[in-house]
């Protein structure tokens, strides 16, 4: 069972253009709909707030992990941890990775978000083999949701 979200997008733009849109904090904010306070720096926290109309009061926060030019940009965050009353810092963050690959038509972007669960794989597999009860059905549903959709 894959415990991650994976998305693949073909972008008709040069890899350098896509890299800038991902890693320049102002450009990132343009399409992600977030206003960030400063640039992305590996190992550091980037903060801002959501600019989607109606949700401007919500904070955005991520810790940049890797910036390998035109190849990999990654950060950890608490995905859509948007309730100001909840302290998300105690919860395990997920890892978001943007991987870029040059293609004849432009750039292939592979996005993954992983770490939604921390059950070691052997236990997960055990859980997955559970009999035809409700829980195993739910696990199958989850698998369908996290299986890459092309």
């Amino acid at each position, binding site marked *: 069972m894959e415990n991650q*979200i994976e*998305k693949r*997008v073909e*972008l*008709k*733009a040069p890899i350098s*253009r*896509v890299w800038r*849109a*991902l890693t320049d904090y102002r*450009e990132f904010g*343009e*399409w*992600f*709909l977030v206003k960030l306070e400063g640039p992305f720096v590996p190992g550091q926290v980037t903060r801002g707030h*959501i600019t*989607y109309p*109606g*949700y401007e009061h*919500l904070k955005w926060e991520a810790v940049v992990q890797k910036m390998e030019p035109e190849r990999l940009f990654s950060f950890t965050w*608490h*995905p*859509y*941890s*948007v*309730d100001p*009353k*909840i302290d*998300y810092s105690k*919860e*395990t963050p997920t890892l978001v990775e943007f991987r870029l690959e040059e293609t004849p038509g432009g750039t292939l*972007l592979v*996005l993954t*978000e992983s770490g*939604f*669960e*921390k*059950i*070691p794989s052997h*236990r997960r597999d*055990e*859980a997955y083999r*559970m*009999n*035809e*009860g*409700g*829980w*195993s*059905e*739910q*696990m199958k*549903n*989850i698998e369908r*949701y*996290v299986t890459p959709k092309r």
Partner: protein
Amino acid sequence: MSHRSDSRGGLGPRAPAHVFAALGDETRLRLVRKLCGGKPRSISQLTAGSRLTRQAITKHLRVLESARIVRCVRAGRESLFQFNPQPMEELKDYLDFVSEQWDQALARLKSFVES
């Protein structure tokens, strides 16, 4: 961002980290496997065949109960434990929500870099 909202005032369902944490244990997964068929079972039934004491099993059941994966029902003088599928359904909703947000964000990125 989606317009979807929930009763807690957030944009979407909350990360069910506590559900995962409760399941991240061999003994508790075994208990869930015994219960997920739907039939409520007593602590004695759940302890049978285990190396663990009744007390230890009870402790694990309480952890599952606090994550709402099982619930305790009374049958006369006995406590029975029953599987509750709802937390797993919430997990599915959560992953669905995050996935949908990415679809929207990546669609915006696409028009941003291709324009």
